[in-house]
C-alpha cells in the first residue's frame, strides 16, 4: 500500500483516479491544483505524486519544480497526467523534475500498470 497524492482540477478525473487507486488498496490524498498539493506536501511526504499539467493557480510543471525543492520530495516519483502527445510538454515536465508521464486518455488498468513501474 502506498500513499499517493493525486492532483487534478477536474473532479471527474480526480474521482476516477482516486477510486481506482483506492480500489487497489492505496491511500489517496486529493488536491485540486498545484497550490493545494504543494501545501499538503510541505507537511508530509508521500510515495507517489500523480499530477495533471494544466491547472489553475499552479500548474503541474510548477508544482513539480516546487516539489523537487522540498527535502522530502527529492526522489519521490512524480508522474504527470498529460494529454499532449507532443514531446515538448513531456520535456518540460522532465526538466522540471518529473519522473514520467501517463498519457490521457487512460483507463484504470493502464493507470495501475503504470504506477506499478514506480512503486515498490
Amino acid at each position: 500500500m502506498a500513499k499517493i497524492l493525486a492532483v487534478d482540477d477536474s473532479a471527474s478525473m480526480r474521482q476516477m483516479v482516486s477510486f481506482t487507486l483506492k480500489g487497489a488498496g492505496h491511500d489517496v490524498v486529493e488536491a485540486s491544483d498545484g497550490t493545494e498539493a504543494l501545501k499538503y506536501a510541505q507537511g508530509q511526504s508521500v510515495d507517489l505524486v500523480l499530477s495533471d499539467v494544466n491547472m489553475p493557480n499552479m500548474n503541474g510543471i510548477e508544482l513539480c519544480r516546487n516539489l523537487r525543492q522540498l527535502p522530502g520530495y527529492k526522489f519521490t516519483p512524480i508522474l504527470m497526467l498529460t494529454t499532449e502527445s507532443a514531446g515538448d510538454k513531456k520535456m518540460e515536465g522532465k526538466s522540471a523534475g518529473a519522473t514520467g508521464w501517463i498519457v490521457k486518455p487512460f483507463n484504470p488498468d493502464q493507470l495501475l500498470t503504470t504506477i506499478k513501474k514506480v512503486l515498490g
Partner: protein
Amino acid sequence: MSIDLSQFHQVFFEESYEGLDAMEQGLLDMDMVSPDAEVINTIFRAAHSMKGGAGTFGFTQVAEFTHVLETLLDQIRSGQRAMSQDIQNLLLKSVDCIRQLLQDLQAGNDPDLTESTTLKGQFEEILSGQSPVPATADKSDAPVDDKKEEGGGGWLVRFIPEVTLLQTGNEPARMFRQLADLCDNEMQVSLDTSRLPVFTSLNPEECYLIWEIRIEKTINKEDIEEVFEWVTDDAEIIITPLDAGSAQAPVAETKVTAEQPKIEDVQAKPAGAANPVSTEKAAVKQPAKQQESSSIRVSIDKVDSLINMVGELVITQSMLGQLGQNFDITRVQRLQEGLAQLEHNTRELQESVMKIRMMPISFVFSRFPRLVRDVSISLDKKIDLIMSGENTELDKTVMEKIGDPMVHLIRNSIDHGIEKPADRVAAGKPETGTVHLNAYHQSGNIVIEIKDDGAGLNTDRILQKATEKGLVAEGANLTQEQIFDLIFQPGFSTADVVSDLSGRGVGMDVVRRNIASLNGSIEVSSERGRGSRFVIRLPLTLAILDGQLVKVGEEIYIFPLVSIVESIQLDDRAINNVGGHSDVLQLRDEYVPIVQLDDVFNIEKEKRSIAESIIVVVETDGEKIGVVVDELMGQQQVVIKSLEENYKRVDGISGATILGDGTVALIVDISGLSKMSGTSAKILDGSHKAA
C-alpha cells in the same frame, strides 16, 4: 481489475457544463485586441479538461471535437495566432455544439454529429491555412507504425544514465525488475563501475553506475523500450539483438538489422498505442438511460450547518426524553422550554434544508450575455447588458423553469424595445441601448426585473391591434395598465413583421402562463420613448406556499395567496344570473363568473345565500373568477405535498398539506378550477335542479 467508468459520468457532465459556461463567459468578456492571458488560459483549460475527460470516459466524439478546439486555443495561448472576431464566433458556436453533444450523450442518445463535423472542418481550415507550425497533434490518432522488431535470441541492453538520473525520481532497480518480469527472470545484469569517482568526491545523490543487461528470451523490442520510456533523455540506451541470425522469428528476420534504434521514435509509441484501446473499450460502456440533471452541488458550508442543526435536534430530543422518563407536574416549565427549543430547531432545520435547493440566479443570468450579443448582432443594434443581484438565491426547480420566459422577455426588449442606433441618436438618446437585469428578494418572493431604455410600449398600436384581433370592443375606454395587460392576451402579437427572433408564435401569453404555473406573476410598466420594465415575482421555492385558508362546510381548502385579488362580502344584488344557469358577479365595471366550491368538489353542506358567504376573487391567466366560500381563516405558509404521489391526481387540486392539528387540507389549483368552471355550467345546472 475492472472499474465501471459510468459512475463518473454524471460528475464529468456537470463539470463539462461548468467548463462550457466558463468558456462562453471568457469568450464574451474577451478583449479582441489584447486578450487577457488568464482569460485565454481559462478557456484553454476548460477545453483541455473536457478533452481529457471525454477521452477517458469513452466519449470519443466529444474528445475528437475538443481536440481541434484545443489545438487552436493552444496556438492562441502561446501567441502563435491572434484572436479574431471570426475565431470568437467559431469558438462560441463550438461551445453550443459541445453542449448539445453532451446533452445527447447524457440522455443516452447517439449524438448528431453534423454540426460538429462542419465546425471541425472550419477549425481544420483555419489550422491548416496559415498555420505557423505544421499540424503535429493528430499524429497520435494514426495507427502505430507496425515496425516490430524481435530479438530472435534476446537482447543486449546497455544502460548509461546521466549522473542526474535519480533526481527525477527514476530508480534503475525498478526498471530492471520490470525487465525481469518481462523475460521471466531470464536475464543477467552486469555492472560497469568505470565512472565511479574516488570516494571523497562521490555525491550520494548522483548515479555513476552503468549497467549491461543480457536478456535471454525472445521479447518485443518495444516492450524493452517502454521500460525505459521515461528516461530516454536522461540516459543513453543501446539495445542490440543478441543473436541476429536466429530462426525463431522468421517474419521479423529481415528487419532485425544492425540499425541503431532511434530513441526519439520510442517516445510517442506507448502513448499512441494506448489511445485506440482505451476509447474502444470504454465506448462499449455507453451510459444507460440517465436521468436529467438529478443531482445538485451543495456547498460544504450548507451541509455543515445542517449537520450542526441535526446535532442540536438530537440534544433537544434526548433532553425531552429524559424529562419524560420521570415526569411530574413541577417540571412543566422545563417541558415547555424543551418544546420551544424543539420548535426552534425544527424551523432552523427546515430553513437550512430549503437552502440546499437554493442556487444563485447567476446560473440563469449567465446565459444572457451571449444571447444579447447574438441577438444584437443579428439586428444591428448596439446594446449594453447590465446585470445586478446575480447572487440572489432561488429554488433550483424555479430556476430551471424561469430561463425560457426570461429569454423571451429579453429578446422582446431587444427586438421591439431598443431602437436602431440611428433612431436612438435622432431621439436624443445614446447610440447604445441598455438592458438591465436585476434580481432581489422581497417579502418571501424573488423579484426579477428586466428593464430597457428603448422606445417603450406603444399604447396606440397595442389598442389598435387588440381591436383588430377582437380582443377589445371598438372604442373601448381602457386605462394604460389595461392596455399594457393586453400584450399578455393569447393571440396577441404586435410585431409588424414576424421576425426570426420574436413573434414565432410563442407570445407573451405563454410567458405569463409559465410564470403563473410557478405561482408567480408578471407586471409591465412603460413610458413612451423612455423604455419598459417587466417585473416578475416568484415564490422562492415550490415546496412551500403562502396560502389563504378558507372553509367550505367542514372542509378547509388553501388558496395560493398570490392568485387572490380580493375577498368581498356582497349582497344578492351584485349577483346576476346569465342564461338561466350561470351566476356572474358584477365587480365594479367587470363581470366575474362565480364558482361554488361546494358544487365543484361535491361537498355536503347547508346552502347559504350569497349574502352570507364570502367571495374570494382569484385571477389566473388574466381571467378572474369569484369563488364562493363560507369563511376566511388565517394565512400561513404551508408545505406542499404531492397528491399524485400519495393518492392520485384530482382535477382542480394542485396538492395537499398537513395542518397544525394533523388534518389534511387540499390546495386549490386556481387555473384548473377556472377551466373546470368553464364547463361548470353543467355542474351548476345539475346542482340547481337537485336543489
